[in-house]
C-alpha cells in the first residue's frame, strides 16, 4: 500500500514531455524537459511559457474495495504565460487545450509502480490573471481514481 502521487506525476510528465504537439507549443523549452516541471521544482528565472504540475490532493478513494486500497487524486497542471505578441491567455489556452486533449478521459499507465488508474476526468480550469499584471495562470485540474 502506498500513495500514488509520485507515480502519477512521473506518468504525467512522461506523457506531456513526449508529446510533439505540446513540445511545439512550449516555445521556451527544449528536450528533455520542454519547460515542463513538477516535483523537481521550477528553475529560477525560468522563461515563459512553462508548465508546473503537481498533485495537491490525495484522499480516500471511490475505488476502495474490501480487498484493494483505493485513492482519489487531484492532478493539477498549471500553465503560466506572460503578456506579449505570442503570449498572454491566448497562448495559455492553446497549451491548456492540448493538455486537456492529452489527459481528459485518458487513464495513466501506473502499472510499473504497482497502481492502476482507470478514471481521469477534467474538473476545472479557471483563468487567473496574476497580481503583477503581466503573468497569466491557468491551473487545470483532473480527478483520478486509482487502486493499489
Amino acid at each position: 500500500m502506498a500513495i500514488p502521487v509520485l507515480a502519477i506525476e512521473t506518468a504525467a510528465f512522461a506523457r506531456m514531455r513526449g508529446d510533439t504537439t505540446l513540445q511545439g507549443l512550449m516555445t521556451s523549452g527544449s528536450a528533455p524537459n520542454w519547460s515542463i516541471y513538477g516535483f523537481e521544482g521550477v528553475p529560477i528565472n525560468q522563461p515563459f511559457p512553462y508548465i508546473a504540475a503537481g498533485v495537491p490532493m490525495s484522499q480516500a478513494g471511490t475505488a476502495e474495495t474490501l480487498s484493494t486500497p483505493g485513492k482519489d487524486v487531484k492532478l493539477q497542471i498549471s500553465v503560466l504565460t506572460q503578456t506579449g505578441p505570442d503570449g498572454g491567455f491566448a497562448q495559455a489556452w492553446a497549451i491548456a487545450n492540448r493538455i486537456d486533449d492529452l489527459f481528459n478521459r485518458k487513464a495513466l499507465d501506473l502499472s510499473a509502480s504497482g497502481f492502476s488508474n482507470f478514471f481521469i476526468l477534467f474538473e476545472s480550469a479557471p483563468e487567473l490573471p496574476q497580481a503583477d499584471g503581466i503573468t497569466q495562470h491557468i491551473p487545470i485540474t483532473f480527478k483520478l481514481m486509482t487502486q493499489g
Partner: protein
Amino acid sequence: MSFLAGYGGSVKQGANTLATVTDWELDPSSDMYETTVISGSRAKTYLPGLYGATVALKVNFDATDTNGVIAMQNNIFSATPTVLAFTLSPNGGTNNYTFNAWVKDMKIHDPVNNIVTADTTLQITGAVSYS
C-alpha cells in the same frame, strides 16, 4: 470487546475471494407466527417459524472479473444456472457465514462522472451456517 473495521471483511464465491466488493449486508429474518389467545392480557405472543435471508452486495463492475461479477451475472443469464456457494466474513475469515444462493437481481450502473457499479442481491437458498 473487539470491534471490527469494515475493511477487514471479505466475500468468497466458492474458493475465490471477490476482489471488487465495497459493501455487503446480510439480513437473516425469521417468520413470526402469532399465538395470541383471548385472555386477560393485552400482550401479543409469537412463535418463530421459517427463516431465510438475502445479501446485498455493492460491487465495482470489472468485466475481467470472471470469478466475481461476471459469474454472478451469468447466474441470471445462464439457461441452466447452478446455485453458487458464498462465504461472508466480517473479519478476514476468522468468522464466516456460509450458504448457497441464487443471484436474484443486479443493478449495473454507469454514471458518466463516476465508477461503474453493480449492486447485487443474493437470495439465499437453504441454511446459513456461522462459525
